[in-house]
């Protein structure tokens, strides 16, 4: 039953730590691809010594949809649709990033109102994605009720998106040069309502979970990732900031009109699960601040620039980056000058790079810590696999 690898003589694929001499009876437990803690179709093979984790090897590809292959056979505009589907929790931000790459290739600008819409909607998306993180993270630690409270807050934001583009998840709203439609009349009101709901909900949330002793015990000092390793592995977003590196694309390389807003970049100090959690909790508040500032100076006027007749991509390559809720999303686009289909489109997905740090975080912890660490990375598996 607990077939040790020594009987077979070899380690399963992916395990690099050599076999230790001694009598310890190591065995392998397979989490996934269908497992409640793996946030989708991810498979983790955990090398256990008793309940202590020695090594974790993620196996991906269970939701590899060949988006890059398919996008090479579609017009660059159509790839906005695919971008909805790799990280479906931050669909607006993915659209934004793809649009920025196309805008860069074709030299398209975005009018003032369009930029404001993008900022407001992007930040709401960030809040909504972080809320799902909070809910699923609480559930990962055994507090099922968390999910319900997080979703309750999130529904207020989903309502805004529903009014905005008729979709709750896969938005397909932005276009190069602006968006597919102007915001509805109810937009400002429902955004204010969402901000209010989330603010009040977060107070309740912090009483409910953040202050809980068991929760703090489970997260503090668990899954430590040092700043050097986080940088070396190419982690980004809350994982990198949780380790104490103040890196946020919105601040370091501001795109759109992010340089006009006053917001803080929260960072952690230890790099444990707790820090990554607190960075996200803080970021929710900062995003709400940005939304409020943007609403206060929300301009009227045209919401998109002149529509193109031809979307033929010139020859050359372009790379655009955006800070999504998961980290730095990059879209690398290469055109041939002959058609509107990209010759190569590559998505640098934050979850993919962040997931590399999982093994390092988990070593030496317990099985339950694997779940906490994976939850704190907050990967979206379709974005890892694309």
């Amino acid at each position: 039953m607990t077939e040790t690898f020594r009987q077979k003589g070899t380690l399963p694929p992916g395990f690099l730590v050599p076999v230790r001499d001694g009598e310890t009876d190591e065995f392998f437990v397979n989490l996934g691809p269908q497992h409640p803690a793996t946030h989708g179709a991810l498979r983790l093979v955990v090398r256990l010594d008793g309940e202590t984790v020695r090594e974790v090897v993620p196996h991906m590809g269970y939701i590899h949809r060949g988006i890059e292959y398919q996008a090479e056979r579609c017009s660059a505009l159509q790839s906005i649709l695919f971008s909805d589907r790799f990280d479906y929790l931050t669909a607006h931000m993915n659209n934004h990033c793809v649009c920025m790459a196309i805008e860069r290739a074709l030299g398209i600008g975005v009018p003032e109102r369009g930029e404001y819409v993008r900022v407001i909607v992007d930040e709401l998306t960030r809040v909504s994605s972080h809320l799902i993180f909070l809910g699923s993270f609480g559930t990962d630690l055994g507090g099922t009720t968390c999910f319900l409270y997080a979703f309750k807050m999130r529904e207020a934001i989903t309502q805004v998106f529903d009014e905005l583009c008729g979709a709750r998840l896969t938005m397909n709203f932005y276009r190069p040069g602006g968006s597919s439609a102007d915001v509805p009349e109810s937009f400002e009101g429902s955004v204010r309502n969402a901000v209010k709901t989330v603010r009040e909900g977060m107070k309740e949330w912090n009483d409910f979970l953040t202050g809980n002793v068991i929760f703090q015990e489970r997260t503090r000092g668990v899954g430590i990732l040092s700043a050097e390793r986080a940088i070396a592995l190419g982690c980004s977003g809350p994982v990198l900031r949780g380790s104490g590196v103040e890196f946020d694309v919105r601040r370091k390389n501001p795109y759109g009109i992010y340089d006009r807003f006053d917001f803080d970049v929260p960072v952690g100090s230890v790099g444990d699960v707790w820090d990554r959690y607190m960075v996200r909790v803080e970021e929710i508040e900062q995003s709400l601040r940005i939304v409020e500032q943007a609403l206060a100076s929300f301009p009227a006027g045209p919401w998109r620039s002149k529509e193109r007749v031809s979307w033929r991509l010139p020859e050359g390559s372009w790379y655009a980056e955006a800070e999504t809720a998961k980290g730095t999303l990059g879209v690398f686009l290469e055109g041939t000058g002959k058609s509107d289909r990209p010759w190569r489109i590559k998505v640098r997905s934050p979850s993919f790079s962040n997931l590399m740090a999982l093994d390092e975080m988990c070593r030496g912890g317990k099985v339950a810590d694997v779940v906490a660490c994976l939850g704190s990375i907050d990967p979206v598996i379709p974005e890892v696999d694309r």
Partner: protein
Amino acid sequence: MNALIDLSANNAVGDFVRDVLFPNSPALAWAANGLLGVAALLLFPVFLGAPFLIWMERKVCAHMQARLGPMRHGPHGAVQTIADVVKLVFKEIAPPGGVDRLVYLLAPGIPLTASFLVLAVVPWGANLQVADPEQGVFYVVAVGALGLLGFLVGAWASNNKFALLGAMRAGAQMLSYEISLSVLLLLVMLLSGESSLREIVLSQRGTVLDWWVFKAPVVGPLAFVLYLVSSTAELNRGPFDLIEAEQELTAGYQTEYSGMGFSMFYLAEYVNMTIQAALVSTFFLGGFLPPLVGIAPVDAALAAVPGVVWMVAKTLAIVFVYMWFRWSFPRPRVDQLLALEWKTLLPANLAVFALGMLALAMGWILP
């Protein structure tokens, strides 16, 4: 069994039945007592209790989560769990390959059997008790621990690593918390000077202040709270439900069980919860005694209500607290759970026990 016919206690139902049926026959009354006890044992927890508790759990959980819970089937989903039970009975039992079939099929019965055996000594009313052994407390501890065997062999037989991890956790967890529970039971025995459950209840006669939770200042409330925490862990209920931690071990020891096997484990969980809640109310909340307040007319009204109603009410209140725990807290890690027992709860319990002895010696118990 002689102690069962104690007419001095509050026992309205028993008295009523005896008065109507056997006005002049103590022997028949004695037999009727036994029948009533068996009825209480079987009917209440199994056919009404457990489905009701499962329904209650789903409703409590839903309302704590700002939902409604089952609504469509029966008024407020009242027959929801009946449907669940019927469905589970008619569900295929498919033992996976490589299981030890005999043990695999037998194991789900063990926790349920252990629960029923414990149920036999729970005093639901002054005369609603199947058996009242002199060493009731020891019986509860000894037989109650048997349920663990079911988890262990069931998980071992099902040839699944998650189940095995869950069973190992169950073993470590339940054995550890057994100690805490036993220390607290000793304390109650010490204070009351009795080891029969019925006598322990009767030792709390008087007003509310005579219940053990209040009667011994400081010691009583502390012991009560510690008992609640330890028994939650002993029950493997959330937040201490590590043996079936869904996010880590999918379903823990019952991963490979389907249909009736699963529902027996599931049922045992709820019967166990009833028992623990009943024990809490027996030891600390005056069991079937009415909550007298010391004002004569009010007391008369309270005393007119049958003891079994009080017992069930108190039990349900404690069950509600268990559910409240479950849907509020995240789950600790397995090493933290054991550290909590060995480093915090057990020393605390021993300290409370010592304090109780001191209180008894110095006469700090309320009259």
